[in-house]
């Protein structure tokens, strides 16, 4: 098997591209794919300050590495989730990568800074661990980006992630979520811009990028993710992909080209999408509903469609506190401590 570019021995075959690559040209291929994605979707301007959400896994380290190679001013953000040894090891991979590349890694520790961890927080809030984790990370990424003066938050979502989410949303016709599934979420109403530069690379490709680039990453997955429904979607899609290479990419990018606009508020399916948003309230992923009527959370100031944002409601149930040590209790408004407690329990 020869490299498509230089005819030297190849280490990876990419069926959907009908191409094989040696390490050097595979690395270049990955960078080109990311560069093309950033340009096509206008994700990052050359002068932007970039904050990369880093988990210690292959995707986040790969995208951080590629962005730095492309010349972006990119810092990392690692959130310690308190998931036992898994968090200890993942943090070590993130810190080692940052040290090796002399990069800045911002750290947040849920247990130390907010007084809860994902396992206990999920139980207390009666959420799945993945739901509590996703909600926490989204809030903390937003906050860290705004507090740190970053222009854009980068996440390591890859083609398989996006195809699996799309598959799930189509299977259940989650029209509101279909309207939101874009590789770029523009900044608005106190939310930073969020982008996914890896959407043209599969998981197999990001893992291979790390190996050929000498990036050590945490191979073992989060122990709390076992049984995650998206894993089943990914396996189903890979069964199709191996028989029909290119199906995942076509599924996702054809959706973006031909269908996504139909589910946005401005598109053909806008009225339906808005109605669904109203009916659904907070998203199935635990986020506050997008759309009209955002206002500052009365406790933390984050934009929310409710009086108290979803993160602060989680914090309350988990017995946590905001970073300044103020305990969050039912009815206690952080910025108006003298007020009477509301008569309605805002925890849903």
């Amino acid at each position, binding site marked *: *098997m020869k490299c498509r570019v230089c005819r030297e021995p*190849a*280490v*990876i*075959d990419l069926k959907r591209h009908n191409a*094989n690559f040696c390490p050097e040209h595979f690395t270049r291929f990955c960078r080109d794919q990311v560069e093309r994605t950033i340009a096509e979707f206008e994700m990052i301007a050359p002068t932007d300050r970039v904050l990369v959400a880093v988990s210690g*896994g*292959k*995707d986040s380290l790969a995208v951080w590495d590629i962005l730095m190679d492309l010349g972006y001013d990119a810092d990392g953000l690692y959130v310690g989730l308190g998931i036992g040894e898994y968090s200890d090891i993942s943090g070590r991979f993130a810190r080692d990568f940052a040290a090796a590349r002399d990069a800045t890694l911002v750290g947040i520790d849920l247990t130390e800074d907010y007084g809860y961890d994902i396992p206990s927080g999920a139980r207390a809030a009666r959420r799945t661990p993945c739901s509590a984790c996703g909600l926490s990370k989204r809030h903390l990424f937003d906050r860290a980006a705004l507090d740190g003066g970053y222009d854009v938050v980068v996440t390591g979502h890859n083609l*398989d*992630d996006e195809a699996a989410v799309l598959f799930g949303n189509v299977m259940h016709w989650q029209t509101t979520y279909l309207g939101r599934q874009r590789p770029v979420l523009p900044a608005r109403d106190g939310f930073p811009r969020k982008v996914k530069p890896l959407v043209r690379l*599969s*998981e*197999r490709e*990001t*893992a*291979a990028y790390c*190996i*050929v680039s000498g990036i050590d990453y945490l*191979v*073992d*997955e*989060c122990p709390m*993710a*076992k049984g*995650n429904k*998206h*894993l089943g979607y*990914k*396996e189903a899609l*890979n*069964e199709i*992909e*191996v028989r029909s290479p290119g199906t995942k990419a076509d599924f996702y990018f054809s959706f973006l080209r031909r269908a996504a606009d139909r589910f946005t508020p401005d598109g053909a399916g806008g009225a339906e999408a808005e109605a669904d948003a109203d009916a659904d309230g907070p998203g199935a992923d635990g986020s506050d509903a997008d759309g009209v009527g955002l206002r500052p959370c009365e406790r933390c100031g984050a934009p929310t469609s409710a009086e108290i944002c979803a993160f602060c409601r989680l914090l309350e149930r988990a017995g946590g506190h905001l970073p300044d040590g103020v305990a969050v209790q039912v009815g206690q408004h952080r910025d108006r401590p003298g007020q009477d407690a509301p008569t309605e329990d805002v925890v849903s």
Partner: protein
Amino acid sequence: MMGPVLVRLRNPNREVTMPGPVLVSVLLDRLDVNRESVLVVRNGTIVPGDERLADDDVVEIRPVISGGAT
């Protein structure tokens, strides 16, 4: 004395052996592993599907799907 190809798998961690020589693609088929879901790694290097593994080779079948097993 030569031994078989030693194959290390994850989720759960386990080892299996297979007589060499054997193509990587055949190895994955015999183990019923979807090639889209893994990389095969030998001595820190990715081994492509058409590579022939010899007796005494030690390879890792590394899952690439976030969130679960191979």
